[in-house]
């Protein structure tokens, strides 16, 4: 009886392992986006290569930044699952760090690579790694000392959390102070 149970447990374990491997293989099918460049100037082209995609798959190439997102173009793969072309980066892309994503269907992430998009004058700065000094040579006009006008995003739930935190802290603090009268120094 005990031996049969051990065999059963062992079988379930092996099946689970096999399932995990198959699932991993299905999820990671080796799709890769790569380029010879890690930084590109807005308005220029990025040499781009994609390999390991499923044959016949259509993906959208999307630049996902901290604050903005740009859909650049669609690619449909032939039987080889490979593409290679120069990807045009629109001139109005905001300089910054991006992920270049290949998305299929309902925004399924097939592959991704990091990419810095620079204003024309900033490319040299990133290349030299001499950011602080390099920046000072990059631009010299248009500086502003005032603050940006920002639309803030605290929601109703956010205000509730803040109210609770502040209320609890203030209430508990006041109770503790009332319970421990001050001694004159």
């Amino acid at each position, binding site marked *: 009886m005990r031996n049969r149970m051990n065999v059963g447990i062992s079988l379930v374990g092996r099946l689970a392992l096999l399932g995990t491997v198959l699932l991993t293989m299905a999820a990671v099918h080796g799709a890769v986006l790569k380029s010879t460049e890690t930084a590109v100037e807005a308005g220029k082209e990025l040499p781009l290569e994609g390999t390991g995609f499923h044959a016949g798959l259509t993906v959208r190439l999307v630049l996902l*930044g*901290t*604050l903005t997102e740009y859909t650049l173009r669609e690619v449909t793969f032939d039987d080889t699952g490979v593409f290679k072309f120069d990807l045009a980066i629109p001139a109005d892309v*905001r*300089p*910054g*760090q991006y992920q270049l994503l290949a998305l299929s269907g309902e925004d399924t992430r097939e592959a991704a690579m990091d990419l*810095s998009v*620079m204003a024309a004058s*900033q490319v040299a*700065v*990133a290349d030299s*790694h*001499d*950011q*602080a*000094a390099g*920046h*000072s*040579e*990059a*631009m*010299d*006009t*248009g*500086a*502003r*000392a*005032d*603050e*940006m006008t*920002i*639309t*803030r*995003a*605290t929601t109703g739930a*956010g205000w509730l*959390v*803040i109210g609770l*935190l*502040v*209320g609890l*802290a*203030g209430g*508990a*603090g*006041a*109770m*503790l*102070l009332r*319970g*421990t*009268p*001050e*001694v*004159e*120094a």
Partner: protein
Amino acid sequence: MIESARRILSERLALHALDYRVPGVTINLKYMLGGLTAFLLLVLIVTGLYLSQYYNPTVTGAHDSVLYLITRAPLGDWIRTLHVLSAGGVVLTVTAHLCYTFWRRAYKKPREVTWWAGVLMAAIIFLLVVTGTVLRYDQEGFEALAHFLAGGNLTGMFGRFFTDSFTPSTSLLSRIFGLHTSLLPLVLIALIGLHFWLIRHLGIHTGGGDGAAGAAGAETGVFRTHATRLAGFALVSFAVLGVLAVLIPEGIGYPAVAGVEITKPFWPVLWVYGLENVLGAWGMILGPSAIFLFLMAVPLLDRGADQTPGKQGWVGWLAVTLGILIVGLWVYGMFGEAREHIGM
């Protein structure tokens, strides 16, 4: 019910260890300024940990990540403002603590090391304020970064860490982020540990003699009462800062443009800005260094046996003069015209 919960907690957390005798006068806000500073540092650590989950310490990503924090991260705007307000609060409480302990002559034997640890902590807090300003990476942050670079170049090998020649592998902004979030806080926490250890074992100086001597030093209080009242002040401070963070949210300037120097720094640093107006770029090195050296030297300069508060003689008058100078330079920095100091 509450009493029962209190007893259970007290037993499990060994809270009876807090029931040691302390001078009665320490149950007073004036003796809690250091504790309040420690509490605000805790707020800074917690809020800083949250901010660091969203911050991108790279030249191309820093400003956008702060904008993201303000506009999209859950509670990001409030937590960032709380962080900035707590930093200002720490500067106020640590300055008040320093002035009050100086006036009480709490640096005298055997508490010299307690004082030196405190002065070092104040210097590190000053550095944390300045490095934190850089991280905004707007025009003000960029100019603060340029000041680090200029200071590094001015001081030769001593300031090499703050120059681009230190390493080509990463940017100065990333290294300042590292300083602000790891090295400086770690040193600060170690110094807080030393400071508290010394206070626990040497006792709180209450003036007019050592420990239990005199009415002021009579150990008529219990530390638990001191800690409870301190917790009360700390929680109320948190609530006040939380409300202020709603009423006056911290902003951010426009993305930096190099080659110009048009902003003034965060308010705790305005006295250095005023000094730079007078001495040029060397002001940012000479001013803070002079204050730091004076404070470190205080226990060596005031060596008499008399411990009466406020009777330091010429050392006291020198401190008052330096204090007036700092206030004067702060007012000059605040209301004077904006000038270029580092020849950007």
